[in-house]
């Protein structure tokens, strides 16, 4: 905040001092405390309302109108001063707060007078008050109103007719002008749509209070400045009406702000998956403008489109309708067609535009992320599929190459052994025999290795046979329940096979289990696999890379892996796989 922007806060001590001085004058007149409170409160409320508006919306001119009204409020109190000049000044300039209050009501909510007749009203009020001030300064004040000790010291006129005439004209015209203020606000209110009315209702209330207070004041006692019991009652009613009015204006302006934050809250709450149609409806509800429509920009069509993607023309030159275009870096995003009354609060429109931009931005980001995610998922599936193909190739190479060769060599050694004919030393026979034995073990190890890389039976005879074989080779007795009407695609069969394989390996290695069950149940859409044991539990997908890798493989075909492994209560691995490749 700039240093000059803090200046209005200096008005706080000024206002308090001013109000205190005014009250001191009234105390001199021996007023009851109810009178003092009723006198001091409306002025302070006006100033407080003005400063509140300034602090929230400094560019709104309503604030200084209300502050000026507040300061003007206390001028009349100086009628009780002991200084004759001060008394005359107070008498002449006592009612000017009416101008500022009426102006503020007309300029509500954005601080500008929008219509010609409003400007005429303000000028009229000014002229009336100025005329009365001049009259009170220079014309002869009759003695019956001069209880304050006012006497004209400028012009030697003794006839009070002129003065009475000016006061009479002023009273009637002033009441009429205030009724005019009320009618202007009421006219605006009636012509507004719901959002406009909601905004103007504070001004309507204030204008009604103002007109009623002024009419009451001047109809009953315009010339009753001498406070008897009736005069006191008039003071009370009128003063509290002013306080209520100032309060209503401040609350009304701040409520506009609340509507703005309601819009932002609403959009935040909508989240990022709001389609434009839903966003438009939500904005219409939040702003109370049922006619509001949000038309997204279609870059493909180069037009604004409706919620069914049909191109639409933006309405132009329609009474009461306004179009707000929403752009980002010069590119159109959407257009908002709404009631023109929403324009009366530019801040509100700015909030809506920001919110819509944010939401649509989010939506586009979301779409981009989804596209990227789909690409990543597809590439992950391709990587796994390529890995599987490579595994198959390696298995086949081992089968056709190394293993055949080892068997051939072992056979050659065995042949050599039989052809020794007893003429070789026993050592040679022993060496050959041991070599064949070692080769046999090597062949077995290589076979197990090849099967671990890719089980040939999986591609030969399918998942069911492969699982039977897997279970058969497990060192633990395993119960196998399998219902598999159709052979799944190879990527899914591989995921299922390796999931069961890894789960069984873990059971054998870690679980210390007696009872192991593998259950495979498939329907048209999904294959459910459960590997359950009654062992130690406490398994964790993060602890070892085995299940982690299986979970990744399962995810690559669009499946899920869940692990239930509470300590000492066995382990259950649940895998769900789709029956079709993603």
């Amino acid at each position, binding site marked *: 905040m700039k240093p000059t922007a803090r200046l209005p806060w200096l008005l706080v001590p000024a206002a308090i001092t001013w109000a205190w001085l005014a009250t001191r004058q009234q105390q001199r007149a021996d007023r009851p405390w109810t009178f003092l409170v009723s006198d001091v409160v409306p002025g302070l409320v006006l100033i407080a309302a003005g400063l509140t508006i300034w602090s929230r919306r400094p560019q709104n001119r309503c604030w200084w109108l209300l502050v000026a009204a507040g300061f003007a409020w206390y001028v009349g109190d100086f009628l009780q001063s002991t200084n004759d000049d001060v008394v005359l000044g107070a008498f002449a300039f006592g009612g000017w707060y009416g101008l500022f209050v009426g102006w503020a009501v007309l300029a509500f909510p954005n601080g500008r007078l929008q219509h010609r007749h409003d400007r005429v009203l303000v000028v009229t009020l000014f002229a009336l008050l100025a005329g009365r001030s001049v009259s009170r300064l220079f014309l002869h004040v009759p003695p019956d109103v001069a209880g304050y000790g006012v006497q004209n010291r400028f012009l030697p006129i003794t006839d009070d007719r002129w003065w009475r005439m000016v006061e009479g004209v002023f009273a009637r015209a002033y009441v009429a002008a205030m009724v005019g203020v009320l009618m202007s606000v009421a006219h605006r209110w009636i012509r507004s749509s719901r959002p406009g009315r909601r905004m103007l209702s504070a001004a309507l209330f204030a204008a009604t209070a103002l007109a009623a207070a002024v009419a009451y004041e001047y109809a009953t006692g315009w010339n009753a400045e001498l406070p008897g019991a009736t005069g006191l009652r008039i003071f009370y009613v009128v003063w509290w009406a002013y306080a209520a009015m100032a309060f209503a204006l401040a609350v009304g302006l701040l409520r506009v702000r609340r509507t703005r934050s309601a819009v932002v809250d609403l959009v935040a709450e909508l989240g990022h998956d709001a389609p434009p149609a839903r966003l438009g409806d939500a904005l219409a509800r939040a702003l109370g403008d049922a006619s509001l429509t949000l038309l997204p920009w279609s870059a493909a069509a180069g037009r604004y489109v409706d919620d069914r993607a049909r191109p639409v023309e933006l309405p132009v030159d329609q009474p009461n309708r306004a179009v707000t275009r929403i752009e980002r870096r010069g590119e159109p995003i959407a257009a908002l067609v709404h009631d023109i009354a929403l324009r009366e609060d530019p801040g509100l429109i700015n909030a809506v535009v920001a919110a819509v931009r944010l939401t649509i931005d989010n939506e586009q980001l979301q779409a981009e992320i989804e596209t990227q995610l789909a690409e990543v998922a597809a590439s992950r599936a391709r990587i796994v599929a390529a890995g599987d193909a490579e595994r198959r190739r390696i298995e086949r190479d081992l089968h056709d190459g190394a293993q055949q060769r080892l068997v051939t060599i072992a*056979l050659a050694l065995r042949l050599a052994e039989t052809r020794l004919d007893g003429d070789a030393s026993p050592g040679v026979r022993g060496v050959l025999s041991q070599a064949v034995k070692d080769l046999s073990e090597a062949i077995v190890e290589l076979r197990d290795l090849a099967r671990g890389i890719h089980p040939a039976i999986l591609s030969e*005879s399918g998942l069911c046979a492969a699982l039977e074989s897997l279970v*058969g080779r497990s060192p633990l*007795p*395993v119960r196998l329940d399998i219902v598999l009407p159709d052979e799944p695609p190879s990527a899914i069969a591989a995921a299922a096979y390796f999931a069961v394989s890894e789960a069984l390996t873990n059971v054998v290695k870690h679980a210390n289990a007696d009872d192991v069950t593998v259950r495979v149940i498939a329907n048209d859409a999904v294959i459910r696999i459960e590997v359950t044991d009654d062992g130690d539990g406490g398994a964790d997908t993060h602890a070892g890379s085995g299940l982690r890798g299986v979970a990744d493989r399962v995810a690559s075909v669009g499946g899920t892996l869940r692990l239930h492994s509470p300590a000492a209560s066995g382990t259950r691995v649940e895998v769900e796989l789709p029956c079709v490749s993603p």
Partner: protein
Amino acid sequence: MPPTHTVEGLQAARAIRDEHGAAIGIVLLSQFVETRHAVDLLADGAGGLGYLLKDRILDPAELTDAIRRVGNGGSAIDPIVIEQLLKRRQTDSPLAALTDREREVLAGMAEGRSNQSIAAKLHISDKTVEACTGRIFTKLGLEPGPDDHRRIRAVLTYLHATTNH
């Protein structure tokens, strides 16, 4: 075996069997032995079939024994197949009622061995084997048969059926 390096061997065996019946004995040597393939091969009922791991050729005595059995219309199933079948679900099947010795004899029968062959392998007398087979058949509720091949088929089918359901 080429061209697809998968189950051409099994298909060839079936084709020979379909064309020539049991007149030609077949010994199938495979890189892997799977129980499912063994049961499939023996499903047609006739004898003269062998299904062994490829590296069994490194034990000439066992291999020639197996070939002779197949040549005589019998069967020769790799011990690994039998081991896998016997191992599964021992607890709640009639197999659990067998003694270790009976289990060994059952494995020998399932491999397709004659009583003499079993006796020689286990270093026990023929009489003991005969007594064992009788008890096994009673415990499993199978009809005892004189024919080695029919015997093995009954045992294999039994094992396969009880271990998978």
